[in-house]
């Protein structure tokens, strides 16, 4: 699977959640959609975690700058 951006993954995930909520998903597709949703969720969580980690690291770097 081509790597998605956080925004892409998040938007897609949102769509699935809405589709399930509005029962726009065939029961036959439910499993596949849930599988996809969990993959998207993993992408989002990974990205968010990595971003946070990097940002905190950068903030520490910035704090260490001598002005």
């Amino acid at each position, binding site marked *: 699977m081509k790597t998605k951006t956080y925004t892409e993954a*998040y938007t897609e*995930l*949102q769509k*699935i*959640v809405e589709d*399930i*909520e509005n*029962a726009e*998903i065939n*029961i036959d597709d*439910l499993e596949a959609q*849930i599988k996809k*949703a969990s993959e998207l*969720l993993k992408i*989002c*969580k990974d990205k*968010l975690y990595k*971003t*946070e980690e990097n*940002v905190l690291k950068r*903030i520490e770097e*910035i*704090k260490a700058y001598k*002005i």
Partner: protein
Amino acid sequence: MYPKKVYSLYDLSRSIRNLFRGHASQTYWVKAEILKLNYYEQSGHAYPDLVDKQKDTLRAQFKSTIWKANFNAITAKFKDIGEALKDDMTIVAKISVNYHSVHGLSLNILDIDTDYTLGELARKKQEAIKALKQEKLFDLNKSLKLPLLPKTIAVISVQSSKGFGDFEDVIARNPKQFQFHYKLFPAVLQGERAITSISRQIQVISQYPKLFDAVAIIRGGGDEVGFSAYDDYSLAKNIATCPLPVFTGIGHSSNRTVTELVSYKSFITPTKLAEFLVEQFDVVQQNLSSYIRNLEKQVRSDLNATTIELQNLNKLFEVYTLNRLRQQNTALSQLELQLIRNTNRYLERHSGYMDVLQQKLKLLDPRQTLKRGFSITTRNGKTVFDAEGLKPGDTLNTTFYKGSIESEVKTKSKS
């Protein structure tokens, strides 16, 4: 006996004295020039040599006296008009004629008319000032702009004069070794000839206004005679209309001459003039140093302000970034929860449908009908819906809720 009648010198003097006795009590107003004042500070008396000259020819000369009391009174009067008795001054004096057998003939000065002393020259001077003011020339040279660093000076002076020497000395020995350039335009600086001589050089210099920053007329040393030239209207006009600022350092201590009044700036000595030029450089240098200091201060303060701003921005950046991440975290968690909840609901809904279907199916089961006392009749394995087609003797199978039978059709009733 000596053949001639001989008088003693004393007798002669006595008879001359008798001759003058009649005049002794009389006073006259006399116009004369003081050739030399001969004032003696210790005694307080003055013994002026009075002359009467026409052109350069001496027409009359007298010794005179001003006794201490009179001298003090006259000096006070002159002080009031900003003048002082001095050599080469033309006066109108109240005198009495005296004869002394030893000191001879002399004039006793009782009073001097100050009005006259302000005299011709002063009147001429005032006229020149008035004319220059009327022609709007009086402040013309002052209105010129002196370059920030007046470094190239056209000097009108005499090479050998003490004033020019003083000027060169100050310039050459200026402590910070500022570089000046000056060119000497030689001129006669005393007497009537000074008027045309200085004027001519000013006109020469005026042809090169871009070459020079200013003009300096320098005079110093020598007698204070023929100074009236500097009150001359035409010389003053030449100075006033010069396209370059004109400085004067003509070493004159009393009233300022018209030349000095119309010049850009006048100095009492050539030394003071040169010092002023050096001072201009000094001021610029000091200003520059202070600008540099201020610049440094300003830059430092700007840097500090920027640093604080940057630090604040840094803090905000941190806060905003972390907030943004937290928001995203929350949003994602909510989405996850929603996914789980929605899926559960979805599944619940679908299992509900199953229940209903099951119920419906249950209702459609024929056993349920049989249970209520209905039965199913078949012939040759096929369900019989209509009595037509059946004839007596046909074999029918009947199924009940419990068990089944085989029977034969006996009769057919009409439907």
